[in-house]
């Protein structure tokens, strides 16, 4: 598969992560990758509001969050009529390599995983692939 140079600053990206430190780290990595429009939210509920508000092109989302988890957010997003695009690609950040959670996420229509702590390379690779497939 060819990898074309991606023009990151034309894409909007949303980071949903409950730990501020991790969220900031991810946003810094995304900035280094080249994103300019980065929205943030601290759980699946505020994430959904942010989705409706900013209509992102790609979403990077944690799984273990309260009150609304990443899995629930994904289910809500795919079923939502309020967002601009309910098929927006979602990448899960995860400590879990348990197949149960991975399979649940797959059934809900996840578009990829990045293992925590996310590295520059892993995050970029995932995001590149999804943007290239658009």
């Amino acid at each position, binding site marked *: 598969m060819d990898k074309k140079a991606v023009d990151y600053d034309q894409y909007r990206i949303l980071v949903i992560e409950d730990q501020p430190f991790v969220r900031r780290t991810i946003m810094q990595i995304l900035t280094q990758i080249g994103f300019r429009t980065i929205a943030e939210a601290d759980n699946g509920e505020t994430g959904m509001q942010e989705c409706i508000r900013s209509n992102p092109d790609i979403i990077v989302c944690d799984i273990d969050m309260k009150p609304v988890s990443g899995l629930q957010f994904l289910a809500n997003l795919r079923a939502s009529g309020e967002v601009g695009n309910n098929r927006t690609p979602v990448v899960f950040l995860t400590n879990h390599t348990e197949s149960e959670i991975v399979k649940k996420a797959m059934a809900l229509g996840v578009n990829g995983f990045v293992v925590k*702590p996310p590295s520059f390379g892993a995050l970029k690779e995932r995001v590149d692939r999804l943007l290239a497939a658009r």
Partner: protein
Amino acid sequence: MAVQQQLDAVLSAVGQGVLVLDSDFRVVRLNAAGHRLLDMPMALAEPGVPARDLVWHCAERGDFGPGDPAELTAEFLALLTLREPQAFEHHRPDRRLLTVRSQPVAGGGVVLAYSDETDFRHAVDDLHAANSTLERSVGDHAQTIARLSAAVEAVNGRVEEAVRDKARTLDLVNHALRAAAGSLHAPARALLAGPLGPVERGHVGDLLRSLDSLRLILDDLGDLVRLESDEIRLLDSPFTVETVVGSALTALGEQAEERDITLLAEIDPAVPATVVGDAAWLRHVLVELVGRAVRDNHAVDITLRVTPAGLPDGRQGLRFAVGDAGPDAAEELRAWLTQGVPPLDGALRRQGWRGLGLHICRRLVGLMGGEIGEEPGPDGTRVLWCTAALPALAEEPAAVAERPPLTILVVEDNPVNQRVNAWLLRKDGHRVAVVGDGREAVDLAARGGFDAVLMDLDIPGLDGIAATRAIRALPAPQGAVPIIAITSSALPDDIERCRAAGMDDHLPKPVNPAALARVLDRLTGPASGAAAAGDGAGGAAGDGTDGMEGGFDGGVLGALEAVIGRGKVLELVGDFLAHARDVEGQLAMARDLMDPTIFGAVTGELKTMAGTVGLTGVYQSAVALERAVRNGDEEAIDAQAALLARQMAAGVERLRGQWAQ
């Protein structure tokens, strides 16, 4: 008269009251005690007074209980006339109790003896009262005990809840710590990527190393939480002892090498090849015990000795002993065993102390029905040992018992693998020569006399591929000897190189005894020979795993059936077949997204399940796919995923044919 005086003296002195009546029932005498006890008016106690008057007086004042005094008196006198010894009671108005014994005297007359039994009776009453008080209080106590035990139960419930809470809390804390430690990794690595002075770089390196050891401690803590909350259930599955021992030692290989330590395994020939137990947790314990010895030493040989052991409860088990543990490990284990905690200050001072490892081993070994301990070894060293209930598999999968013994050349430089492979072969009656160098292997093969060669690929001197080419260049029959590659990778490229060099088959490390026996059987059997080893589809890079006879080890389910019964095996196969339906879609999605996590979830689960049902082809293909995913080579990933899908389809067919309900 002297007799009368003596009698008077006696009557005055005795404590009992004595009333003497003549034959007409008149008073002859009432002694002093009698006066006192009966409290009679002097007039009624005078000699000659009719007893009737005296008795009437008593009856009237109520000594004989309620009733008509005339009747009571008549009754009393009637009793006296019976001329037999009688006994009465007087209940005096002052609540005193008198008992009266009447004794007829020869020649008429009666002697009545009064004694005061108030105290005795009170004592008896007191006793009764005390008794009923006791009974009441016993009743009370029973109630109290019931209340107490209800309270204890309630407390117990709360304690259990608290323990569960504690486990949950610890779990939560563990999770949070892990996330926090995890979130430090990225910035630390980012720092390393930037311009840093050597000192700063060293500090960041230290930080990353500390994070790694923190993660190990958190792993241990997680294990401990699961142990404490009884969440760990041990498996009862058959496994080969050498495989687990080999895999435990391999896990420590790098650490050992850094410290110039040689790890050796010594398995007593009396140890059964296949036992039933939990291989994964046993490996965990062995890695910890041997790991302690490795961390405490430098430039020595460390031997893990496995011997049969009878357990305290009479079960069949094995004993694993690691020599050359340092005094610190021994001291720490002793502290865990005797005081329940390690000598904290000393332990914390030591570098690389993982803290909970030995404690977890102790709990695990306990779950396995065994014990853990330490004892003096040679030259002032200490030996760490543990036992575990690991009964021999009821029916060992016998495949090669009737085969004539072979002479086999093992080319392998790792001493552990040398021993394990040689032991596996000797167990089946084969003769074994072992060399650790490719050039020696070629020299020996040139002399001839071998029925097969087991060739490790990574050996010093000539590597396995070059040595194979050299052997194949020899004239027949030396050059035609069957050669089996022992590979640590199942990558198609490696397999292809093996075949291209002229090898007949390959087996992955650690060597599975049944697979080894089968391959030897096929390559050296009467109808075979090197020429017949081509096994149909062979050759193409993508088909690297078809050397495993279509990738199905029927012995696995057979052995399992001997342990858990056919019904359970059929259930298991049913589960696998149901799961297999999902795998195709999941693999397609993983290929589509090229997502390592999704691949990991699919292959991880598949490996466990395929291994359990004996689909060795699927297992190896899943391992190869994992390796490709790790290397990040998309073409190889695609090829391996396609191969895995084909292996699954073939495996499902085989299982349906042989085991489905």
